[in-house]
């Protein structure tokens, strides 16, 4: 995969780090939005290498982490039903609900299956017309095209025993919510490259202008991330605040139009709860009325479920960058990847798990710094 895997080149990475350090006249605070980028930054220690020049705050872009407790509880309630095959991406299985997780529902006899693609769930429904097959449609704009297609195809093929439990979130309202917070420290964003691959980046242009923050559409390899940081730092030093595209090889300004079009046909904008953060207006997607027959919440009557989140988990503060995971009192003690208390500890894209697994040695340092 020449010229694709090469974005891990260490010479280039070293040069970019030196350039960023030489360019800054003060320390800047940036946020990477996507959990995939958090993973690279923490694993490669990019934030440590840039110490003094750039502080990275890890953003809310891990879909597993922001799926609200009430949607998990709805999933658990549906999955426990006798006639249901409940399907999900693998990383949702261990996200703790109020009582248990999907894996425990399965251990108690629930039929819970992991699928790679929502089309696999649809195929399962075709093979099992005697069962109700439900797919847990979570994620950001990157999974929305796949989930929209599964519903669209179900209708096209007349598969009536298929439905989706939707918990979709979108990035721009989350960025706005972070910028609106009175204690916000973020001065520039690395926008999630693959979200923009689908949606393009025109939505970010008014945000960059209104809040005067550079927003750099950034890829996922170390060199991508460093180049994105360098572009953001350049803008900050020059007093500019524009949307720039670092990830040109995969992102066009208007995104992938057929994908955007189908998402807009199947879903509409709606208010959504974000785990640990609360409700963000018009920050999510729900099925349009014409697809109500495929809405698992309506089919199984779980729409009204409301729950409160546990006090101990500081996911909200972590996901908005107010604290780093090791500053959560439960980090590494009450909460570990083996026994997660909150969702950011479950997924490898979650900030808490990234810190726990990939930078264990930093735990003591940060704990000292925080105390």
């Amino acid at each position: 995969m020449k010229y694709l895997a090469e974005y891990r080149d260490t010479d280039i990475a070293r040069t970019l780090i030196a350039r960023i350090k030489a360019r800054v006249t003060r320390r800047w605070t940036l946020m990477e939005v996507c959990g995939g980028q958090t993973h690279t930054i923490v694993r490669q220690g990019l934030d440590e290498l840039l110490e003094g020049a750039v502080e990275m705050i890890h953003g809310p872009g891990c879909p597993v982490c922001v799926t609200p407790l009430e949607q998990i509880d709805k999933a658990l309630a549906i999955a426990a039903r006798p006639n249901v095959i409940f399907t999900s991406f693998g990383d949702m299985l261990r996200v703790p609900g109020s009582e248990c997780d999907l894996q425990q529902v399965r251990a108690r006899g629930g039929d819970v299956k992991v699928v790679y693609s929502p089309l696999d769930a649809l195929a399962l429904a075709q093979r099992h017309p005697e069962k109700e097959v439900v797919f847990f449609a979570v994620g950001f704009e990157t999974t929305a095209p796949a989930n929209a297609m599964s519903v669209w195809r179900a209708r096209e093929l007349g598969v009536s025993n298929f439905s989706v439990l939707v918990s979709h979130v979108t990035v721009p309202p989350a960025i706005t919510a972070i910028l609106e917070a009175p204690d916000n420290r973020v001065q520039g964003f690395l926008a999630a490259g693959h979200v923009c691959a689908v949606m393009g980046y025109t939505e970010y242009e008014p945000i960059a202008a209104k809040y005067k923050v550079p927003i750099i559409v950034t890829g996922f390899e170390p060199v991508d991330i460093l180049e994105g940081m360098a572009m953001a730092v350049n803008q900050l030093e020059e007093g500019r605040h524009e949307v720039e595209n670092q990830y040109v090889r995969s992102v066009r300004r208007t995104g992938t139009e057929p994908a955007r079009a189908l998402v807009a046909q199947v879903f509409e904008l709606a208010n959504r709860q974000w785990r640990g953060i609360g409700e963000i207006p018009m920050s999510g997607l729900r099925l349009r009325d014409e697809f109500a027959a495929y809405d698992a919440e309506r089919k199984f009557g779980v729409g009204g479920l409301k729950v409160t989140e546990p006090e101990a988990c500081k996911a909200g503060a972590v996901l908005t960058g107010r604290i780093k995971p090791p500053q959560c009192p439960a980090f590494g003690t009450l909460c570990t990847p083996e026994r997660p208390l909150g969702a950011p500890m479950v997924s490898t894209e979650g900030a808490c798990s990234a810190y726990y697994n990939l930078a264990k040695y930093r735990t003591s340092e940060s704990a000292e710094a925080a105390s």
Partner: protein
Amino acid sequence: MCLGIPGKIQSIRDDAGLAMGIVDFGGVRRDVCLQYVADEVAVGDYVIVHVGFAITKVDEDEARRTFEVLKEMSQLDELQWMAEVADASLKGTEKPA
């Protein structure tokens, strides 16, 4: 589930009106829905795949161009750095510490 992976299209077919294909991810092959990029891809092209769907085509020329610019920059910086080190040590011999 949110990690997108680049892969190379091996074959393309029509599956009851849906463009599907086999995509190779460094040796691992998977069935992928190509519907959203169907108008712009051919066998041999790279796509970014999320949860079984190609969401965008990777522009290989652009990937190469960007990489070469970065690579050149890093080599220039390296040269400059070596020149600075050399200068410093030359000055050092002239002016004993």
